[in-house]
């Protein structure tokens, strides 16, 4: 469970990659090149990067629609991710999923899902399949605190605990379900406290500290992998931008946002790397510089890719399309 120096540097690089990727995505959005919604993960990077680092390659991830960071942390190709955001054929979902539906099953990344809480049930289904097929797999299910008041959360946690399914429930508690503060939507504002109602062990952690996240996730994954049933982690975090690109943010003060920005997980890990003598200021700048170069190439690739051809409309919709229907008429 030790985080060696290389691992810490690699995590730092991943967080910077996510940050720069999303900043570029926001620009594309403002340029009108990204349609629909765009939900940024900025400020929450330590949760996804720290937790996903605790997984093995055969493990699965099912997540919500604030999913760019999770996909990048799992190692999906940033070029194909940005192309997906722009709705291009080279995107990971063929340009038909967009920001909220990033997926690459070859990497065990089953996707972002657009229905709040609906994917929690899918994660439990994947865990059931892993148990049934006797595969050594853990499913990491990531969701926000807003979805914990939805029926799916309840049904999924009960079944997972009852059948001792291999799921790590990772709640990113960023304090707001869109514009609704957690205390206004939940009489028990701690999601970890809800786990006792299902007999599931749980822990509440500082999600801005990546070492804390990694250690908690490693413990949870080990518990789940040993067949003892699910585990719940509540990672306290904060999203710096609005809920989506069109959020006027009337529900929180600028002071509050500024206070949390002081705990920026990238800033914190950078300071840690410096104070431990792992990297100096120049080293950190070099990473930033390298990542910016990568993002430039990513942006060019995405922007120059083509939209899906009209003939491809029916592709990627069903696993086994009923092609014979075309000739049936």
């Amino acid at each position: 469970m030790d985080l060696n120096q290389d691992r810490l540097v690699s995590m730092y690089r991943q967080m910077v990659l996510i940050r720069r990727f999303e900043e570029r995505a926001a620009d594309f959005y403002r340029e009108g090149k990204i349609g629909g919604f765009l939900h940024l993960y900025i400020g929450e990077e330590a949760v996804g990067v720290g937790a996903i680092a605790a997984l093995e390659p055969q493990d699965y991830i099912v997540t919500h629609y604030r999913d760019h960071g999770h996909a990048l942390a799992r190692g999906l190709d940033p070029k194909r991710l940005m192309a997906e955001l722009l709705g291009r054929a080279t995107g990971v979902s063929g340009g038909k999923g967009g920001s909220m539906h990033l997926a690459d099953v070859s990497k065990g990344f089953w996707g972002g899902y657009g229905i709040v809480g609906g994917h929690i049930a899918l994660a439990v289904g994947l865990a059931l399949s892993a148990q049934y097929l006797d595969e050594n797999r853990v499913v990491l299910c990531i969701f926000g605190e807003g979805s914990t008041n939805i029926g799916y959360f309840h049904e999924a946690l009960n079944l997972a605990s009852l059948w001792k399914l291999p799921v790590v429930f990772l709640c990113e508690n960023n304090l707001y379900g869109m514009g609704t503060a957690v205390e206004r939507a939940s009489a028990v504002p701690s999601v970890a406290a809800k786990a006792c109602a299902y007999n599931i062990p749980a822990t509440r952690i500082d999600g801005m500290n990546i070492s804390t996240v990694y250690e908690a996730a490693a413990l949870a994954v080990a518990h789940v992998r040993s067949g003892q049933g699910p585990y719940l982690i509540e990672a306290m975090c904060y999203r710096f931008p609005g809920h989506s690109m069109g959020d006027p943010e009337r529900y929180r003060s600028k002071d509050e946002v500024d206070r949390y920005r002081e705990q920026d997980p990238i800033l914190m890990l950078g300071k840690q790397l410096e104070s431990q003598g792992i990297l100096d200021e120049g080293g950190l700048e070099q990473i930033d510089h390298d990542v910016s170069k990568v993002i430039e190439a990513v942006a060019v690739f995405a922007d120059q890719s083509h939209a899906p051809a009209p003939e491809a409309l029916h592709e990627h919709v069903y696993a086994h399309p009923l092609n014979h229907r075309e000739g049936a008429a």
Partner: protein
Amino acid sequence: MSAENHISRHEALGLHGEDVHELYYQMVLTRTVDDRLWNLNRQGKVLAFASCLGQEAAQVGSAYALAPDDWLAISYREHGVVIARGMSVRDIFAYAYHRDNDPNTRGRQIPGHYGSQKLHILTASSPVGTQLAHGVGSAWASVYEGKREATIIYFGDGATSTGDFHAAANFAAVHKLPVVFLCQNNEWAISVPNTLQYAVKHLTERAAGYGMMGTLVDGLDVIEVFGATRAALARAYSGEGPTFVEAKCKRLRSHTTEDDDRRYRRREDVEADRAHDPLANLEAYMKAASLWDEGVARQAGEKAAAEVEDATQYAEASPLPKPSETLTHIFAEVKTDAHQNDD
């Protein structure tokens, strides 16, 4: 337990000897109704329904604690609740026979889905657990209108695994709504036993997940159920929010008339469960409390049998709804011409 202790239990709750006799009678009447309906189903006269045998104390004891203005959101297994609420046996049988004079649904619903504006009973739903959302909505309406009313929601152990339960419990707790969640845990959701339904020991543990008070009671003990319900109602009226009451009961028959529990329940287990009889329980209490003589059981039995016989004759003699009125009593406002609103 000494006789003094027993007496203090009902008297401590402000119940008189007459109340205990009334509770006993309502439980006997519930069982007599249930038995007769079951037999009539086997004769082909009454459609499918869910028996409440074994749950008489949980139903009568809780409903007896309600004030006239309170509201009830029920499941399809609550004959004892509606009897305690004051529905006449004639009305229950007119419904079971699907007669036009049934005030519940005018003979248009499957038996047991009671509903009455007069008695403040929201019409029961067939889908398991949906009444939880209805009941919380009813409680919210009471608060919104500034009325001193509570809503009691009746449901079983199976319903606690549904998403509706979760959403309803959270919402009621967040907004401190005047709700009593009355769970009759009869150990079976059709054929699924408790051990395959939830991973906690008692369902009351769920209450903590909503920041709600949870109370575990012996659902075979009518006095205990009454006391727990009344305490929950007091919390509801005073704005302290909802309470989860779990009444542990036994289901002494199959899930419904259409179910055969011999496929999933060992006979010796059913026999063992029959020893946990809420009526025998109350009889023992009444004996210890000097509220019993042999006449009590005989008179209650005779009176209940007479009521049920009268109600059966009444329903048999009542007319069926007219085919031409199929669409009446379905909507509050009837659209006579479906094309009228097409613009």
